[in-house]
C-alpha cells in the first residue's frame, strides 16, 4: 500500500522536477496540483544525474505539494473534464469487507452504520449466490438530487454526487428516493475524537459528520484531487474495485489498470437496476469464473455480523 503511495508521488515529483528544471510549458496535466505551486524565491543548487548543477526553487521540491483548501463553490462544481466511474468485479469479492472498514474508518462513519454494504445476493433460486459490495452509485440521473429541496445534495460535473452537511436540513427525502439504500442518517451526535471533530468540514472529505444530516459514499474526491484512489479501492486486497475517469477511458485498482470501455465490454459489465433509468456510475462485472467458493466468503462475516 505504501509502495503504491510513493509510486504516485514519484510521478508527481517527476512532474515537479520537470517543471522546475525545464520550465515546462509543454504538457499540462488536467489534474496538476503542481500548477498551484508558488515559487518561494528561495533557490537551491542541486545535482542532476549527469553531474550538472541545476538551480531549483525550493517550493518545487516538497514531496506532496500543499493542496490549497477547496472552496465550497469549487467543491460544488467538481473537477472539470473528469467523469469518475467505478467498476466492481464481483468474481473477485470474497466478503472480506476491508473496503467497508477502511471507508468507515476514514470517514468516521457511525459504528453501527456503513457507507459500503456487502450484500449476499442470489438472483434466482437456482443461480449461484455471490457477494455484492455497493457504494453510492453516483447516478447520472440521481433521484436523490432531484428531490433535495435545498441543494444540499448535488451532482458535480465530474459525476460525483456529494452531500453538503452544512446545507442539509435533514428531511430525508433523498433516503426515500434512493433505490439503492445507500444513504444513512446521523440520527445522533456523531462520536468523534477531538481532533476529528475540530477539523474544518468539507463536503469532499465528509468529515466531521454532523448530527441531523444525511451521509453516504462520496467517491473520496479529496483523494482523487491528490491523484490517489478512494479508500475502498486501495484497501481491497483482492483488487475488486477499479476506479478511474471515463473521459480518460481508464480504471485502476492500484496494481492493474484497464481500458474502461474494453473491460466492461469484454466482461459484460452491467449496472444495478438499469430499468429505473438512474444511470449509475458504478459498473459491475458478473461473478463468473470465481477463484473461491461462496461459502468461503461466508466465513469472513464476523461472528457478530451486523446483518439485519
Amino acid at each position: 500500500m505504501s509502495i503504491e503511495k510513493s509510486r504516485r508521488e514519484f510521478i508527481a515529483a517527476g512532474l515537479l522536477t520537470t517543471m522546475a528544471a525545464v520550465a515546462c510549458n509543454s504538457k499540462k496535466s488536467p489534474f496538476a496540483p503542481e500548477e498551484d505551486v508558488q515559487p518561494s524565491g528561495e533557490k537551491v543548487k542541486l545535482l542532476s544525474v549527469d553531474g550538472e548543477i541545476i538551480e531549483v526553487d525550493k517550493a518545487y521540491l516538497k514531496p506532496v505539494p500543499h493542496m490549497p483548501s477547496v472552496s465550497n463553490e469549487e467543491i460544488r462544481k467538481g473537477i472539470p473534464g473528469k467523469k469518475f466511474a467505478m467498476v466492481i468485479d464481483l468474481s473477485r469479492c470474497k466478503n472480506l469487507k476491508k473496503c467497508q472498514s477502511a471507508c468507515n474508518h476514514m470517514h468516521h462513519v457511525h459504528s453501527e452504520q456503513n457507507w459500503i454494504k456487502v450484500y449476499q445476493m442470489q438472483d434466482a433460486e437456482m443461480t449461484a449466490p455471490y457477494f455484492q459490495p455497493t457504494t453510492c452509485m453516483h447516478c447520472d440521473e440521481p433521484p436523490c438530487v432531484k428531490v433535495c429541496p435545498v441543494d444540499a445534495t448535488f451532482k458535480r460535473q465530474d459525476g460525483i454526487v456529494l452531500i453538503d452537511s452544512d446545507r442539509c436540513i435533514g428531511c430525508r427525502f433523498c433516503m426515500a428516493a434512493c433505490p439503492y439504500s445507500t444513504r444513512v442518517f446521523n440520527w445522533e451526535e456523531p462520536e468523534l475524537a477531538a481532533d476529528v471533530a475540530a477539523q474544518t468540514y468539507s463536503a469532499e472529505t465528509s468529515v466531521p459528520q454532523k448530527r441531523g444530516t444525511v451521509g453516504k459514499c462520496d467517491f473520496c474526491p479529496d483523494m482523487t484531487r491528490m491523484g490517489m484512489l478512494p479508500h475502498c479501492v486501495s484497501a481491497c486486497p483482492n483488487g475488486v474495485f477499479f476506479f478511474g475517469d471515463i473521459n480518460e477511458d481508464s480504471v485502476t485498482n492500484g496494481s492493474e489498470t484497464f481500458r474502461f470501455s474494453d473491460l466492461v465490454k469484454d466482461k459484460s459489465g452491467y449496472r444495478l437496476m438499469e430499468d429505473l433509468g438512474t444511470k449509475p456510475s458504478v459498473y459491475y462485472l458478473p461473478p463468473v469464473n470465481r477463484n473461491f467458493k461462496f461459502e468461503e466468503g461466508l466465513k469472513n462475516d464476523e461472528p457478530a455480523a451486523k446483518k439485519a
Partner: protein
Amino acid sequence: MTANYHHKIIILASLLLATATTKLTAQDSAAAVTTLSVRYFLPENKLPYIEVNTKKKVGRKFDPVTSVPVNIYFNEPAPANLLGKVITGKDGLARVFIPASFKSAWDSLSEIKFIAESDSIKGEPALSGDVTVRKAILVIDTTNADGVRGVTAQLKERKGADWVAIKDIEMKLGVKRMLGNLSVGEADTYTADSTGLASAEFKRDSLAGDSKGNLVLVARVEDNDTYGNLVVEKSVPWGKGVIADTHFWHRSLWSTGNRVPVWLLFLAISIIAGVWGVIIYLIRQVIKMKKMGKDFDAALLSRTT
C-alpha cells in the same frame, strides 16, 4: 543473464530486505516492527532524490510511522557525507535531493550507496537502511513502421563518458492516466532485448488525450535493485481530442436550484402568480371593505353633527 534472473533477484532482494530489517530492529517478528526503507528515484533523467519511508507492519499491512528524524548519507555514514536531515511526514515519507556540493564525488563514482539512519526515539529502536544504485538514465522514444505505432525505451548506464543501453531490464510502458498508467499494449511489463531496447506496439487507438489529442507516454523502471526507480515521459499526438461535455450545465431536474428546467419554472411561476394574484386581490378587497367601513363611520358622524 536471463529474463528469469531478474525475478529471482527481486525475490531474493525482498527476502534479504525483510531479514535485514528484522535483524536491525532485533525484535520479535510478531510484534509491530518499525522499518526504515531507502529508495532511489530519478524522474525525467534530471534530479535524482532519495526517499526514506518509516512504516510499521500491523497485521497484513503497513501503517506509516510519522515524524521520525532521519539522516541520509552519501556512501559513508560520516558527518561530512550528510546529504540532509529529514523528518518523515504524515505518510511516513521524506526525501532528499543531492546538493551540488557532492558533484565531485557523484562524478567520480558509477555506483553509489545511500545510507539512512535514525536515532532511537519515542521508545522506538534506532533504525537504519541503505540502498546501492548504479547511475543510469531512461530514454523513451516512439517508432512508426508502416503506420504501426510503437513505443521503445532503453535504460542506459554510465560507461566512461557515454550512456550505454542495458539488456534484460524489465520496465513498464504506459500511457499516463490520472490514477494509474495504462499499459500501451496488452502486456503489463516489457523487457529490454539483447540490444537493451524494450519495445511495445501501441494498441490504444483513439484513447482520449487532452483537448488536442495529446497523450503522455511513460516509461518506468520500478524498484530495480541495481538502478532504482526511473521514470521518463513523452508527449505524442496519438490520442483523441476530448471535447468537454457541457451536458452538466444544462437545466435539468437534478441540476442545482438556479438551473430549473424552463417548463417547470414557467409552470410554477404561472401557477404561483395566478393563485397569489387572487389572494392579493382578495386582501385588497378586505382593505377596501375596511375603507368602506371607515367612510360609513365618517358619513354617520357628519350626519349626526
